[in-house]
């Protein structure tokens, strides 16, 4: 894991004191709200529906036990005993007091954490595959590059006031777990014919009111040119991106309006002209950063664990957990475990302080003091020895974090929605809860298999509904919540924007509509091995539309 050097520590400490001064001046009336708002947003502090909300950065979703314990501590002392993990792998506290926020930031700084650039029109937290460094078929760990990008983009003088927010994701596995094609810049690590590492570069992806899958503008960018090329992209965007209309200010609109070829040409010209050798990464730079993320020593172990086999044969729930929540590790004898933050009927992504402490203990005892946050709002223990797995499972289960549903129908991404958010037009969490309760985490959910449901409470699409296999968008119509459904979206290497089924459904009917969609899939699939998305792509919208609007559920609008 990256460790702060003197410069980082001084930078973060100075920022805390700067914000403390700004907060004091605001409370004393020396700053108006209009003057203060951009300053607090630059430090991750929003004013939400019930109170302030502080968004803490978790760079590329990597944590250790000390950081997670501090997050738990802050939740108890300054919030209401819980936090909410987000789709940017950050953590949000929903109830902090303005006057106490500088103290929170000082506490976070003590474990090398901060809230810088978690809001505002700047380059946000860089995300990465949550199985980085451990996935069995990984090309290279994306986190060293994500950290290089983070350092380069932190308080970058040219890019602190972009037309709009800017999100970058890096993926190091052939399978895209970081949703890179929904990002302003998506970087896919690849090797060229000579075996050299580099990136396939995607630009202009994004969700919100105008969703786009990113366009590929370069097949292979040598790794040493990462910053030069990314700087060229952001510079073109900064100069040409629209500032006249907030809703047209993201880079996706620029790429769309300018055209992929013209945009790509502009970037290549800037890249060619930008001979700043200071930005060219040397092998030593990359090796230096890579060393921070070197895997822990993992002594060779037997590739199979009789202990697991015995437990699976007598414990169906453990067996279900193994099938859904355990991924193969690149080192034989180890596994990657997902602690589900989607217990049936509770809030997706919420984690109590006690649960955070429990996971921190497990990371320390069984996972080389490391854990991850996924953009799907779960926690990951990346280095668990197979023989330890049953014990870790039992401890996760004892704090409600062992729901066997990773990647299944109840592993729902949901934004906070109208229960917390000022922008929301409808609630998301209750819909997620009711869908999870409808399908559960038993035999039916297991039979349905891989199915990603994503729910947003407004058009801004924080719940990624456009790329859900089933996407749900909450809107308000004539004072009532109504839910529009999309099908066929995907955020992986075959990214796609979902298609709208037709008229929306009331809050009362939306769960039944999802049930109808799922049952239509089960009736249409070739066999139980054909997942929802494959069936949808094969049969198209027609049978789903017919089932929704001409037979059972019926629309309300």
């Amino acid at each position, binding site marked *: 894991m990256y460790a702060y050097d003197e410069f980082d520590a001084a930078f973060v400490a100075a920022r805390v004191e700067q914000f403390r001064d700004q907060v004091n001046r605001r*409370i004393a009336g020396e700053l108006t*709200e209009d003057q203060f708002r951009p300053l607090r947003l630059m430090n991750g502090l929003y004013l*939400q529906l019930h*109170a302030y909300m502080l968004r803490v950065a978790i760079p590329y979703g990597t944590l250790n036990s000390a950081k997670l314990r501090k997050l738990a501590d802050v939740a108890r002392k300054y919030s209401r005993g819980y936090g909410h993990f987000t789709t940017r792998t950050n953590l949000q506290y929903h109830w902090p007091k*303005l006057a106490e926020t500088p103290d929170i930031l000082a506490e976070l700084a003590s474990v090398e954490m901060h809230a810088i650039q978690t809001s505002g029109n700047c380059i946000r937290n860089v995300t990465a595959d949550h199985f980085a460094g451990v996935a069995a078929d990984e090309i290279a760990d994306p986190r060293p590059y994500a950290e290089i990008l983070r350092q380069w983009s932190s308080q970058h003088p040219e890019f602190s006031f972009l037309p709009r927010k800017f999100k970058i994701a890096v993926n190091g596995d052939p399978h895209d777990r970081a949703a890179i094609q929904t990002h302003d810049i998506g970087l896919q690590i690849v090797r060229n014919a000579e075996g050299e590492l580099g990136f396939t570069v995607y630009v202009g992806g994004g969700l919100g009111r105008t969703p786009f899958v990113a366009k590929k503008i370069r097949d292979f960018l040598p790794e040493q040119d990462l910053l030069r090329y990314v700087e060229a992209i952001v510079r073109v965007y900064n100069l040409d991106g629209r500032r006249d209309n907030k809703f047209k200010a993201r880079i996706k609109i620029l790429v769309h309006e300018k055209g992929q070829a013209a945009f790509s040409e502009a970037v290549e010209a800037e890249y060619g002209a930008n001979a700043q050798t200071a930005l060219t990464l040397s092998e030593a730079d990359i090796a230096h950063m890579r060393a921070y993320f070197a895997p822990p020593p993992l002594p060779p172990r037997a590739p199979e664990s009789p202990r697991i086999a015995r437990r699976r044969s007598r414990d169906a729930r453990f067996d279900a957990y193994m099938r859904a929540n355990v991924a193969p590790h690149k080192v034989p004898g180890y596994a990657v475990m997902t602690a589900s933050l989607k217990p049936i009927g509770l809030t997706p992504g919420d984690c109590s302080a006690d649960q955070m402490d429990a996971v921190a203990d497990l990371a320390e005892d069984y996972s080389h003091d490391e854990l991850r946050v996924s953009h799907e709002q779960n926690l990951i223990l990346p280095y668990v020895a197979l023989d330890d797995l049953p014990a870790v499972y039992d401890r996760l289960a004892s704090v409600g974090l062992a729901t066997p549903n990773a990647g299944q129908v109840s592993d729902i991404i949901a934004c906070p929605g109208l*229960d917390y958010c000022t922008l*929301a037009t409808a*609630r998301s969490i*209750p819909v997620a809860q009711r869908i999870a309760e409808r399908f559960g985490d038993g035999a039916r959910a297991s039979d349905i298999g891989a199915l990603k449901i994503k729910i947003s409470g407004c058009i801004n699409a924080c719940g990624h509904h456009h790329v859900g296999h089933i996407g749900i968008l909450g809107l*308000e119509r004539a004072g009532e919540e109504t839910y529009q459904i999309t099908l066929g979206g995907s955020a992986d290497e075959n990214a796609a924007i979902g298609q709208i089924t037709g008229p929306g459904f009331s809050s009362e009917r939306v769960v039944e509509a999802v049930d109808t969609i799922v049952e239509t899939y089960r009736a249409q699939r070739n066999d139980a091995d054909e997942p929802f998305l494959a069936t949808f792509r094969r049969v198209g919208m027609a049978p789903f539309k017919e089932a929704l609007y001409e037979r059972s559920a019926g629309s309300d609008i």
Partner: protein
Amino acid sequence: MQEMITANRLRDGLVVFLDAAGGWSEDFHQGAIVEDAAGKAAALAVAARAAADNLVVDVYAIELELRAGHLSPKALRERIRATGPTVRTDLGKQAQGFAPTIANRG
């Protein structure tokens, strides 16, 4: 018309309602009901002074209506704001007995 003036308190961000004495209460039931345009303008002027004095931010008026015999904010957003998250009835005003309505997660 029946309306009430609301805002968020600067220091802690909590939702507050303008009361009849020109103060701010966390409890919806303590909020002053304005019945006409003149009353609303006067209340908003009091609220604007409180904003200028850095006591509150984001001042605005909300519409009220009778729901099941009780006065309540008309918009769902405002009912949730005056009550707390519908998915955590142990949090927010509902946990303090201040809620105008009972949380219902739909």
